[in-house]
């Protein structure tokens, strides 16, 4: 029973969501809206579970003296933002907004900006001309990079055209090949779950 019931629920929900895609009927729309609403409700409750687990894990690690400063900052952030929102509201001139714009947003931007340096270091490794394939990759990358710089267009109109061709034909063809594989893989995985062949999410039973 413990195994059959979730598989039955999964099968019914999967088939319902599949069929509703083809129907503009209000009943089909209603099924879609209701299931999505319930999903949101379930997610809200699981967020509480996640926060409880976050607090529990961090407190346990602090008591063991592991990464204490980082964990204290994490817990302080978790407590501080809701407290600020409860005290001063979330209006544009509230302390919550101030903390969001002057603390959270700059920290997120900082992590995002690391990407520029990581792209440079990854490119340096990736574009080493070790063999024939790497040389082709390097040549293609150079053509695309040069073709995307505005000054190149002023020197010659051919470079942007070559760049366009590389991006829209060989590169796009390879990308679509991968996308077809991903689409088919996603579809068969979904079918395996709906038909109850794939049961890892049920503790692998």
């Amino acid at each position, binding site marked *: 029973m413990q195994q059959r019931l979730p598989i039955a629920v999964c099968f019914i929900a999967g088939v319902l969501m599949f069929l509703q895609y083809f129907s503009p009927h209000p009943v089909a729309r209603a099924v879609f809206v*209701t299931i999505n609403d319930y999903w949101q409700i379930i997610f809200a409750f699981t967020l509480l579970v996640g926060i409880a687990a976050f607090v529990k894990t961090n407190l346990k690690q602090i008591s063991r003296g592991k990464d204490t400063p980082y964990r204290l900052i994490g817990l302080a952030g978790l407590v501080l933002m809701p407290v600020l929102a409860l005290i001063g509201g979330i209006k544009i001139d509230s302390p919550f907004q101030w903390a969001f714009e002057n603390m959270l947003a700059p*920290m997120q931007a900082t992590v995002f900006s690391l990407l520029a340096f990581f792209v440079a270091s*990854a490119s340096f490794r990736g574009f080493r001309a070790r063999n024939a394939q790497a040389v082709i990759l390097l040549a293609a990358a150079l053509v695309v990079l040069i073709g995307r710089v505005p000054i190149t267009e002023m020197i010659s109109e051919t470079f942007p055209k070559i760049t366009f061709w590389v991006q829209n034909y060989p590169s796009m063809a390879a990308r679509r090949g991968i996308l077809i594989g991903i689409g088919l893989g996603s579809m068969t995985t979904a079918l395996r779950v709906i038909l109850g062949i794939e049961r890892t999410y049920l503790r692998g039973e």
Partner: protein
Amino acid sequence: MPCQENFLLISVSFAVFIIIMSSRLKAPLYLLLLLTWEVSSVYASESGAEVRWFDPATLPTLVLSIIAIAVVLYTIRLVQSGRKLSIREIPGLKAVEEAVGRATEMGSPILYTPGWGGDIQRPTTIASMNILSSVAEKTAHYDCRLIYPTHDPVIMAVAQEVVKEAHAKAGHLDRYRADDIFYISSSQFGYAAAVDGFISRTKPASVFLLGTFEAESLILAETANSIGAIQIAGTDSTIQLAFFIVACDYTLIGEELFAASGYLSQNSMILSSVKAQDILKIFIGLFIVIAVIWATLDPSSTWWSF
């Protein structure tokens, strides 16, 4: 008349209540009743909407879906009739054993992340869970620590169950550490910063980046690369795949990520659906060739475009 309708409604409600309470399936029946009630109330609010049962614009999708389902069912039947199926070697999945072995030898943990972009209903996340199960079974066998930070509490709960079951399957339930599978933050860069911090401080010997990734992919992969960890990556985003190919040791490209559960478990039923993918790829290839020839001979034709 309204009085009779109310009486009928109360009688039916009472009868349904009695059936539910006397049944062994109280909870599912109650949920079904609740769902029906919700659907009917949403339906009532949309009563002025379109009343067609089928949208003709979705016909090509329906036909293709039916063909795909038929092919999957055919391959399942093929396996049930005793046909043996094999799958080509996938270096990224073959390296799982090597990654776990390396971490065990070095006495360092393994870090497994499903990325920030996906939730549990996404096929990529389900595929990632299948690989997690195999990795967890191996780590349980070798007594190697497995750290699984996630951005989604639902994924956290499912991963805890999957890892626990894998430990039980390996016969080492005592080695399961629930605290190592934890929720961090739903914020993309908050999650990336925290996982980066874990990688820098704990210095895992092996890092698995399998799931749905967005801009955080290269941040995580490069940090893991900087500490010399062996990296196995795979995602359904073609943009992030390019970053993984450059930064990681092994990358599962395209359908390889979805074939993983069949490859690792050698389950014939799962392998049958992988075989179905190959058959469908042949169909799509043939369709593309025919469409290209047709479009070349008759440039005004559009039947192949939908």
